[in-house]
């Protein structure tokens, strides 16, 4: 298999894994086998996978409350992710974080974050570290359209541009900040237009086209690695499911027509990419089915891993508070 084909098939596998992971997580949460709050990434898979496909293992990212996709795309171990959702000792955070706080510093995933825009300054700090180390690394911060209302968004765009930091701002415009449609909280639809005000390039891209996202990221990342500073990448996508669920999903007030439009094969990022690969004779329907079967097996194994992992011992409550 050619290098290109290997990469493209892996992109497809990751997108399917993200979708199936989160659909499974919703069922696990409904069944009360996992706890707390859950924010599924279903429908937005092409953004995380397209961006991370253009990053190196030594590049660092920060994520959001809707962070499972970013973890998987950056290469996180689904067994340890699942164990974290189950609140077990073998989870990424030893059961201290849960869905909203998964991190894997070993792969440059500096954490999901329960605060909108909260990860942006942290990614900016990772970009400063990369600039000082001068080894060509970059950082990327994922954030939603809702984050554009936060001061941290504007502050970090300004400083990153001023200091020419190797940072990629990835706005996942899924059209909803929690329960509010983006047009009800922003007078300007094009989020990339914030970029010129702060003196950096801004690009809007179809966030459901994984190859377009990868290409736009490659350009931005190459510029950043050369010392050309940050880029704001506005990825237009759509949140298929509810904002959040605890015991039950929050009510979804959106029209059935709208949901059907975005969930159809023409817009579904996974179906579209399958079509692209099939059109180039890179995969057959049987290949895709084999990927899906493998993803399902891997997820079943992850649930088994999580359930076999012990709950954290209450005597370890204070472990990890302070570094020695």
């Amino acid at each position, binding site marked *: 298999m050619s290098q290109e084909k290997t990469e493209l098939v892996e992109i497809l596998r990751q997108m399917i894994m993200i979708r199936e992971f989160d659909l499974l997580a919703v069922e696990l949460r409904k069944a009360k086998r996992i706890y707390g709050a859950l924010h599924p990434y279903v429908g937005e898979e092409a953004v995380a996978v397209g961006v991370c496909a253009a990053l190196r293992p030594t590049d*660092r990212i*920060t994520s959001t409350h809707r962070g499972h996709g970013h973890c998987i795309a950056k290469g996180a171990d689904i067994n340890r992710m699942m164990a974290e959702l189950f609140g077990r000792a073998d*989870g*990424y*955070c*030893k*059961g*201290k*974080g849960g869905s909203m*706080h998964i*991190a*894997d*510093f*070993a792969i440059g995933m*500096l*954490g999901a*974050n*329960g*605060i909108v825009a*909260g990860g*942006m*300054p*942290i*990614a*900016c*700090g*990772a*970009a*400063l*570290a*990369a600039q*000082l*180390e001068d080894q060509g690394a970059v*950082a990327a911060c994922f954030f939603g359209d809702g984050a554009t209302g936060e*001061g*941290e968004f504007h*502050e*970090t765009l*300004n*400083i990153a541009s*001023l*200091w020419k930091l190797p940072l990629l701002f990835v706005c996942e415009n899924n059209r909803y900040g929690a329960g509010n449609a983006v047009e009800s909280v922003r007078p300007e639809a094009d989020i990339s237009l914030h970029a010129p005000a702060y003196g950096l390039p801004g690009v809007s891209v179809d966030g459901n086209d994984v190859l377009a996202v990868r290409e736009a990221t490659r350009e931005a990342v190459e510029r950043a690695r050369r010392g050309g500073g940050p880029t704001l990448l506005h990825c237009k996508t759509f949140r298929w499911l509810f904002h959040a669920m605890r015991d039950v999903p929050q009510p979804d007030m959106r029209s059935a027509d709208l949901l059907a439009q975005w969930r159809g094969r023409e817009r579904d990022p996974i179906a579209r990419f399958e079509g692209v690969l099939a059109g180039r004779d890179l995969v057959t329907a049987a290949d895709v089915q084999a990927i899906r079967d493998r993803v399902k097996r891997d997820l079943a194994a992850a649930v088994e891993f999580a359930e076999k992992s012990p709950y954290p011992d209450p005597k370890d409550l204070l*472990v*990890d*508070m*302070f*570094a*020695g």
Partner: protein
Amino acid sequence: MREITVTQALEEAMIEEMERDERVITFGTVRAPALANKFGDRRVRFTPISEAAFTGIGLGAAGSGFRPVVNWGMVTFSFVAMDQIVNQASKIRYMFGGQADFPVTFRCTTGGGIQLAAQHSQSPYSMFMHLAGLKIILPSTPADAKGLLKSAIRDNNPTVFFECSRLAGVTGPVPDGDHTVPIGVADVKRAGRDVTVVGLAYYVREALAVADSLAKEGISIEVVDPRTLVPMDAEAIRASVRRTGRLVVVDEAPATCSAASEILALVTEDPETFRALEAPVQRVCAAPVPVPYSPTLEQAALPDRAQIEAAIRRVLEGAPTGGQTCR
């Protein structure tokens, strides 16, 4: 021993730590020409007035292998960075299961008494103490300021380093060489038999002045300086109180949910120390008002030597009258 000011001591600490470890970087909204000339504008930066961003930048750089010293200027300005302090810095290590260390030091000035009025005369260290996950330092002498700043920079945790505004120009002896002071160790600034006075920052000096004055009457005051508020050296304070049987805590923050309250709780919760008490414990704190501008009002709002002395006399009499020490 040579005598230098707190400000000079802090600058020495910065220079020595930046020479010692090239991963120490620093930034804030105020230019630091001496440091920038010595270490260059990559390691010494001045930032836009964007406290939330540069607080988080410090945290992110710390999680990526550097040792940032982030200067908020006045603690006042930290309040616009509360997301990064409260939701991020104080929780990031534990929440992620101890995967990474975050060796970042946040410097800020604190306290009133210099007519800067309500917003710029605050002493909010107990707000930060309340967040599990930050180390909190509050020195009172040039030597402690230097030694503790060096320790804070070397510490692998987010640390808030409070610098009392009224002490900036105060001089004192500072040892030569690599002088460090351990975090979490209190210091008995004056040994005594009759009453333990725990002072914070500027009020360590004031307590020492009152102790000098009362010594003429044969009253022997022990002055204890916690120096670090998290972790608090409770045992050193308890040991002093077990010797004297009496405790007064002096600070310029208002009493409610204060460091002074915490110190009283740590003392009275301990059975052995509680049994050693011969009088109710006392707090001498600021009035519960925003610190006013006019000198007459400001002086009325902040503790003074007369109030410290009165509290000492009350605990010596054993039965406080009027009940209300902290207004």
